């Protein structure tokens, strides 16, 4: 998981750096305009145990590609992201959730 995460993040950064500086600024502004308050869904709904059996709870955190949505996008708190990650991986073993989708 860690390696995987690092990889994808590294790729994203590299791309941004490689692009023109103007593009970076634009992205920053766009973020400012569309930024919302991000709260952890699990904290709000007071879910203490994220179960791999609740596919309905897990699917919002899995975009089309099948990857686990990073915290910086979903806004999940560290504690719950950790639990979510374990739950998603368990669900994957049981073929409740795909590993990859193309």
């Amino acid at each position, binding site marked *: 998981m860690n390696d995987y995460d690092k990889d994808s993040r590294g790729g994203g950064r590299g791309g941004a750096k490689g692009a023109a500086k103007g593009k970076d600024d634009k992205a920053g502004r766009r973020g400012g305009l569309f930024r*919302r308050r*991000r709260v952890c*869904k699990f904290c709000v709904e*007071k879910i*203490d*145990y994220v179960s791999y*059996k609740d596919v309905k709870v897990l699917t*919002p*955190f899995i975009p089309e590609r099948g990857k686990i*949505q990073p915290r910086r*996008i*979903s*806004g999940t708190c560290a504690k719950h992201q950790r639990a979510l990650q374990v739950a998603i991986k*368990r669900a*994957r*073993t*049981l*073929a*409740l*959730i*795909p*590993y990859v989708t193309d």
Partner: protein
Amino acid sequence: MHRQYELVYIAMPDSTEEQLAELHQQVATVVDRFSGTIERTEMWGRRRLAYEINRQREGVYVLEILNGPGAMTTELDRRLRVLDIVMRHLIIRIDEVLAKETRTQTRRKAATVSRRLRRGLPAEPTEQELSRRKAEADDADGGDGFGEGDR
């Protein structure tokens, strides 16, 4: 030392009722040998698999809640891996997480009660409050679409 475990296995989609019953019996025998107990069995039935396993697109899911020693899970794991009828299985320990869940929930409830008492409110929310809170929640649902677009 007995602990609680959760076992899920996926049987081949073409397995018959008898085969499933026999499989369950085999699990029960192992559990019995380790002087454990089966607390609950849930048949989820046929489900679509998210990806192909053994060239199958569907599988029969069965969940069992077991009480028993750790050695029991090793044995179950070994046996289930050998059986051809079982495509996939997963055993996880649940007693600790469940205990943790109830602990946090009771603590949270206690905190709410003491907070309310400090404010001079009755310990339990009154019916008026409940209905108002529900109305607010319904409002928010239709409102800004918060939470949906973010993901």
